């Protein structure tokens, strides 16, 4: 068990949330709060950097979807970066690998470069 910390930084395409620790039943509301407190402009891309995510259960998956919904409501897009293998496997089982654009790391998201959600290939 490790606590959840979320740090926010802003890059050209939009905010990047670096999520460290466990995303579970007890900590998932913190991600929602963090996303709600963001200033997201239409056309921006919210990037969730999961490189240091230790654990993600079904409550954590729900929180990722909540983040996506909050971004979508504001006309912004969302992408996941550096998804750990175990979480990537679970996203595949539940079909979310075709809902979230997934990139190797934050740099790859920036390189993909588009802040226009309609240009992203993987969105369903």
């Amino acid at each position, binding site marked *: 068990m490790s606590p959840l910390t979320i740090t926010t930084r802003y890059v050209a395409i939009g905010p990047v949330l670096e999520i460290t620790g466990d995303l579970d039943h007890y900590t998932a509301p913190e991600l929602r709060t963090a996303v709600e407190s963001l200033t997201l402009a239409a056309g921006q891309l919210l990037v969730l950097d999961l490189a240091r995510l230790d654990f993600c259960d079904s409550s954590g998956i*729900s929180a990722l*979807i909540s983040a996506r919904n909050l971004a979508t409501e504001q006309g912004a897009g969302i992408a996941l970066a550096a998804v750990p293998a175990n979480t990537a496997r679970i996203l595949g*089982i*539940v079909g*979310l690998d075709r809902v979230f654009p997934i990139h190797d790391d934050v740099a790859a998201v920036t390189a993909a470069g588009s802040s226009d959600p309609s240009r992203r290939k993987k969105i369903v």
Partner: protein
Amino acid sequence: MMCRTAQEPEPGDKHDADVTDAVFTSLLEDSAEELYEQAPCGYLSTLMDGTIAKINTTLLDWLGLDRSRVVGRMRFADLLSVGGKLYHETHFAPLLQMQGEVSGIAMDIKTAGGRRMPVLVTSKVKTTQDGEPLLIRTTVFDARDRRAYETELLRGRQAAEEARRRSEADRARLQEALAVLQQSLLPAELPVVPGLEAGSYYHTASPDLLGGDFYDLFPVDGGRWAFFLGDVCGKGPQAAAVTSLTRYTLRAAALHDADPVTVLTTLNTVLYERYQSGEGRYCTTIFGVLEPQDGRVGVHLASGGHPSALIQRADGSADFLPTPGGLLVGVLPQAPFVANRTDLLPGDTLLLYTDGLTEARIGPERALYGEDALRAFTAGQPPAGPQALITALSGLLASFGEGLDDDTALLALGVPAPILTANEDMT
């Protein structure tokens, strides 16, 4: 603090030290009488029958009495409260007589104003050189602050104990309510389906958190039966509410049109719209229809983000019935669901499970148990029908110990193998 040690002082310091001592003595106490009268505790001396012979001003002030009314006229016991008097007579005085001294006894003295004052009493008998008791010397310490502190401590402890008792009772009541609610999310017992055997198992990970796993088996139409098994994301009462909504939506949708993709699409619409604003609620589900005919059972099922069903064949093999690409139910307004079909022949068993089983962590490395291990385990079991498979799997779950930290539901459906007997042709 002045602290003289036994160490011999330096020769040059001797005179200075004596002068210092004299100054301190004069500053501290000008007389022993003054010390006796104004001491920060009460002093009194009584004759052996208790009659007060001498008493200091401090104690007289506490009592609010004149020396003239006390000395030679009152006994020590007269200064005590009723309870104090009794205690003095039954315990204090006899102990003093036996031991010659009694130390630190808590009693109440009564003051002239009628109030009681808690004190700590120490008495010592003074004897003559022959050992004959002569008088009793007594000190009386003010214990008001101490008593208040003790009372506060006691009250604090009682409050803490009461709170603990109440919280334990609340916890027991809550767990009972949760257990009842959890059971209401599952069928009390599976129905008897002609030509089919069914078995199920539910493992609860935490008695404090309602799990979100569910399953059901029920008739639809024309001899067909429907089944489902799924897992709501999250835990607790909110997840249980979704479980309940999901269960009844699937049942109602199946009665209307039992096509698996249609049923899952209906559930998707209901969950998506119900939880569209605010925090979403999602579930993975496999829903299917069973159609018994000619000694076999046709299975038509679809999955929304749920791990593929596993089939244990009568020949001892075990294979998944793949349904990849279906989406977690309730995420998007239109979602893809993937269907598949198979036939269950006599001796075949269809197994549905939630990912508590496959996501369990095993061994010291906490390695993922995984789907391949589940397939291998199932292939290693004799094809003896759903009940036997459920029994084997519940044993497997138990063997995971703490590595199994999620709720797990199992549902097995199979066509019984013919019972081969010598007189089979006659029956």
